[in-house]
Each structure stands twice: as structure tokens, then as C-alpha cells.
């Protein structure tokens, strides 16, 4: 009898251990507001002072009023966004679909680390929050996986926000357009991509969809406004696509070796982007040609390149941060711990390049101008 109980216990423990084999399903979100880095890592958002590299505060969501069955864990993966009124917008990617704005200057409770007070929250979305929102003139445009962009008024003083407008990006009778990337604007229009193989423009004066272009592959990254005035987006169909912002008229600018995951980055006439096969591209938008043959640092790339001075920095799945010169020479700039992974786009602030890691001893590393680690942050 005792043996049988032990066997049952062993099987249950074994099942629990193996069921944990799914591992992480998303990478951390990273952003800065100049002197503070915000890191959304698994169940917590951390604010780290870039000068002192001390933890300023952390936020792990609000406890639900009625917690029975609400055990789906909090998941913070969306890069936090700082609004002009000084609040930090944080979105929870679990199935409660909650978005918060916290006040980093007022703390509601002090536990292990100070917790900022929640100024408002929004819970009308029906899908996961994967993309960061965009603030335009006191309005917050928050794209959701339910295919809608929720427009929130940042100045209405409401603690429980209601969307002032809801922009339906999905087409009637079709699957929801999962919106996974931050939109951009040219002042008159809002441009957004959809994982469901589309790029869409919205008129900011009417909130109507101006045009929609369906592509052959999913578009997990965002669009970039090139130096030539055209829009660029990469897709899983291994293509860099060019769009006319006014009409949506589009053509394939370049065929790539692998899926393009991250958002292309424009720097003057040059457009930098990478693919999941690990190649980095430099594309001249004015002359519509590659500046140099694609280079492959070492492993798969989902992050967008980061342009710092005259070098391009790129994070790879192997945990390496590579520096690419203007003429396409590649060199290893920094290597993360063994088995660590860098999927997130690095950010630059206070003369430091910040890199978020998965499967590493530390969540965040700050690198100086020579790629040397200045400090690390491990959530404490």
C-alpha cells in the first residue's frame, strides 16, 4: 500500500516536472524613459535607475478582487510606455487582459521593493496584450490581439478607463487581426501591422481604415517610415514590403533568406533589419538596393537592430551582441552567459546599451561604448 502511494506520488511529481517543459513562451519587453529602464520580465515589471543601477520600483499587477479560478499567472512582456503626464503604461499579457497606468512618483505599498500607485486601468480588451501602445496628442492607441485598437483619453481623469473609440482592424467575417506591434504615425495617419498577414492605415481624423494590404505572410514586427517617405515592413513570407503611405500601393522591395520578425529601423536613406535565419541587411531606400551583402553573425534574430553612432548593434538568439560597421564588418561586441538568449531589441540610454536576456543569471545587462558590461540586473 505504501509502495503504491509512493508510485502515485512519483508519477504526479514527474508529470508536474515534465509539464514545466513548455518553458518560456515570450521574451522580455524593454524600454527607457531616458534615465530609467523598464523591463517587463515574466510576472513583474522592473524600473531600474540607469545612473545608480538600483531598482526603483517593481509592479506585479493588482490582486484580483475575487481570485477563485483566476490563477492564470501574470505575464508582463509588453515594453512599458511612458506617457507625457509621467505615468508608465503596463499591459498584462495573461488572459485577464488588464492594462494599467502606474505613477512612478507615488507608491501605494512598500514591500520588498516600492510598488507604484495605479492611476488608471483598462480591461475592455478581449485578446492578449502583446504590442505596446502609442500616445498621440493626449490619446493612447492600444492595439490588442482581438483585432481592435482601443483609443483611451489620457486626460479624462477616469480611474477605470473606457475606450473613447474602438478601431476595428479585422475584416468582417474573417479571423481576428492579431495586432502584435506598436503602430506608428505620420501625424495624419496611423499605420499598423497584423499577425494575420496585413498592413493597415487608419485616418486619425475619422478613425476609419484608409487602406489595408493583405500579404502572403504574417507580420509580427511593425512598420518603419523610410527616408524616401515610403513605409516598410517585413513578413514571415521572407519579404521586405514597401507601401505608399497615402494609397497603400505596395511592392516587394527585397526577398530575404529568412522570416523577418523585428521592425525595420530607418536611419537616413538606410534601412536596417534582420531575419530569423540570422542575416542582417542594410538596404538603401533611395537607390533601392542593398548596401552590402547580408551578413550572418551567428544565430537566429528576432530583435530589431539598434543604431548607435556609426555602428549597428544586433542581438542574437545565442546571447551574442554583435557590432556591424557601416561597411558591413561584423564583430562580437558582447557575449551573454552560456545558454542565455537575447530575443529583445536592445535600447540605448545614458550612454549605455541595455540588453534583456532570457535563460540567464541576469535579466538585464548595461554595456558601455566598448561593449563591456558595466552592471547587471537580476530582479533584486
Amino acid at each position, binding site marked *: 500500500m505504501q509502495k503504491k502511494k509512493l508510485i502515485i506520488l512519483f508519477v504526479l511529481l514527474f508529470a508536474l516536472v515534465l*509539464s514545466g517543459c513548455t518553458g518560456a513562451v515570450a521574451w522580455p519587453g524593454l524600454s527607457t524613459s531616458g534615465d530609467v529602464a523598464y523591463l517587463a520580465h515574466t510576472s513583474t515589471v522592473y524600473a531600474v535607475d540607469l545612473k545608480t543601477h538600483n531598482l526603483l520600483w517593481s509592479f506585479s499587477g493588482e490582486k484580483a478582487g475575487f481570485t477563485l479560478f483566476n490563477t492564470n499567472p501574470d505575464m508582463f512582456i509588453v515594453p512599458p510606455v511612458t506617457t507625457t503626464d509621467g505615468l508608465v503604461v503596463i499591459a498584462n499579457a495573461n488572459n485577464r487582459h488588464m492594462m494599467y497606468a502606474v505613477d512612478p512618483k507615488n507608491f501605494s505599498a512598500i514591500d520588498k521593493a516600492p510598488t507604484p500607485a495605479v492611476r488608471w486601468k483598462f480591461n475592455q480588451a478581449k485578446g492578449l496584450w502583446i504590442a505596446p501602445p502609442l500616445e498621440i496628442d493626449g490619446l493612447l492607441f492600444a492595439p490588442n490581439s482581438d483585432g481592435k485598437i482601443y483609443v483611451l483619453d489620457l486626460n479624462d481623469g477616469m480611474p477605470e478607463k473606457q475606450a473613447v473609440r474602438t478601431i476595428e482592424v479585422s475584416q468582417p467575417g474573417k479571423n481576428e487581426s492579431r495586432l502584435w506591434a506598436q503602430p506608428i504615425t505620420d501625424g495624419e495617419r496611423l499605420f499598423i501591422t497584423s499577425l494575420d498577414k496585413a498592413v493597415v492605415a487608419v485616418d486619425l481624423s475619422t478613425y476609419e481604415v484608409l487602406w489595408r494590404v493583405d500579404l502572403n505572410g504574417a507580420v509580427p514586427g511593425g512598420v518603419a517610415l523610410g527616408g524616401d517617405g515610403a513605409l516598410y515592413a517585413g513578413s514571415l513570407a521572407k519579404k521586405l514590403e514597401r507601401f505608399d503611405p497615402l494609397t497603400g500601393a505596395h511592392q516587394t522591395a527585397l526577398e530575404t533568406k529568412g522570416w523577418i520578425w523585428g521592425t525595420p529601423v530607418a536611419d537616413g536613406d538606410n534601412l536596417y533589419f534582420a531575419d530569423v535565419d540570422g542575416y542582417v541587411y542594410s538596404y538603401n531606400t533611395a537607390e533601392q538596393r542593398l548596401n552590402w551583402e547580408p551578413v550572418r553573425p551567428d544565430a537566429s534574430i528576432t530583435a530589431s537592430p539598434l543604431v548607435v553612432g556609426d555602428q549597428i548593434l544586433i542581438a542574437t538568439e545565442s546571447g551574442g551582441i554583435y557590432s556591424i560597421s557601416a561597411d558591413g564588418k561584423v564583430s562580437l561586441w558582447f557575449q551573454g552567459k552560456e545558454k542565455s538568449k537575447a530575443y529583445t531589441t536592445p535600447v540605448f540610454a545614458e550612454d549605455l546599451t541595455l540588453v534583456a536576456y532570457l535563460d540567464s543569471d541576469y535579466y538585464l545587462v548595461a554595456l558601455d561604448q566598448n561593449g563591456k558590461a558595466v552592471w547587471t540586473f537580476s530582479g533584486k
Partner: protein
Amino acid sequence: MKNPSNPTQAQRPELPQVNPRETLKTLAVIAVLVLAFMNFSSVIDLLVNILILIYQFVGHNFGIAIILLTALIRLATWPLNAQQMKGAKAMQDLQTDKEWMAIQKKYAKDREKLAQEQMRIYRERGINVFGSCLPMLIQFPILFALIPAITYAIGSYPLSILKLSKSLAAFGLQDVAALIPLNSKFLGIDMGLPERTLIFGVSVPILALIVGLTTFIQTKLTMPPANPNDQSAATGKMMGYYMPIMLFMFSINYASGLSVYFVISNVLSIVQYAMMGKVNWRNLLPGGKKT
């Protein structure tokens, strides 16, 4: 040949003969288990590919794909389940066997002799002691691999899509870019997320409750009539309560696609038991166990 004049041979009790066929079968199962867990990611890749092939075949419906995959797994493991049922029944019958009960009583204080006698009876009646648990064990890699397989395949989050692409690329069977993103909705439920239904302002995990209920019914229906003196029956009864609770708690937190797997698996298990004439419908009635 025995020599009674040799005292060492006369005193040494006869060792039970090992059935080479049963031993080979046991070793084969252990080898499969070890190989499966050593190459766990390959098992996941295989399941992901089968799941996505079915998904394409049924017109991009993930719920139907999971149901068909469950049926496929049930069909593939049908002989194993049948063997498990037979093994369990044989062990159950043994508990009320006169000879078995007699040796338990006779050698109560001599564990070594009791073990030898038990082995003799197993051998004489063709019972494999692992007959009821080995077929169950061999299904574990499939069950454990299903959890990540469903999580990756649905791709509700960025990294799961990357893992899905690698799984599909490993077999090279399908045009990954054309497939992604998958339609993860089934009956209005996102198969990639834990299901909750808002009822009077309270979020209720309906699917997880159905998992618990069907597991309870399945355990009750397939439990043989209990002998009050049988200790294994008490363990079975205990499992009858633990399993539904455990699977309910499990289903609350995991992708609802997995809950669909559990429900369909339970229903098909009942069907298989019914087809083999081993369902105890009376167990569902109050006082039914006394029969």
C-alpha cells in the same frame, strides 16, 4: 535434475523461471521510455507536425484537430490499453483466488518464500506483473509531450511561434509561413489560453470542470467491483478522487486545448471499456458498489 542427497540443492528453494517473452517486452517498453525522454523534443516535434497536418486537413480548425489527434492517439494505444485492462483484471481476480489467499496466509512471515510463490502463480497463469502499468507508462511521453506541443502549435505568444516554426522545419513537411498564424479559436474559446466563462460576474473554468467531471465518471465506470479486503481496491478508490481533482487543477492553468484532449480522451476511454464489456454502470449509482 534434483539430487535430494545434496543438502545445498535440497535446501535451496526452486527459483521461479523467467518468461523470456515477458522480459523482452518489459525491456522493450523501458527502452522506448528511455529513448522517448532522451529525445523528448523529437517527440514534441512529431506531435506538433501530426497536429498541424490534421489542422490543415480539417480546414484550419484547431479544436477539431485536437479531437482527431486524441482519437488517433487512443487508436494507436488501443492494444496497450486493452492489455492494461486485461492485466488489471487478472491482478484483480488474483486477490480473490483461493490459492493466492492461501499462500498469503501460509507465508505471511516469510517474505522471500511468499515472493517466490507469487512469482510461481504469475508464471503458471501467464500474468505479467507489469502488465497493468507498463502500457500506461509507455503513454506518458505522449501525454507529457502533448502539453508543449499544443502550447507551441497554437502560438498565442511570440516565442511559441518561433518554437512552432522550428518544430515544423525539423520535419520539413509543411509551408510554415503560409500556416502562421493558426486559427486558435474553437467554439469561441481560444485553445491556446486557459478557458474562463463569465457567469454572473464570476469567471468559471467550464472546460476544467468538464475535465474533472469526465475523469471522475471514467474512473468510476472503469473501476471493477471492489473486494472489501483488497488493498489495491482502496488505492484505486483513492485515485478515483485524486485524479479528477488533479486534472481539474491542471486544466485551470493550462491551454484549453489540453482540456479538450482530456475530455475526449476520457470519453474514448469509457467507449473502449464499454466495447470490451468492462464498464460498471452501477458504480455511478449510489450504493452501486455493493454489487
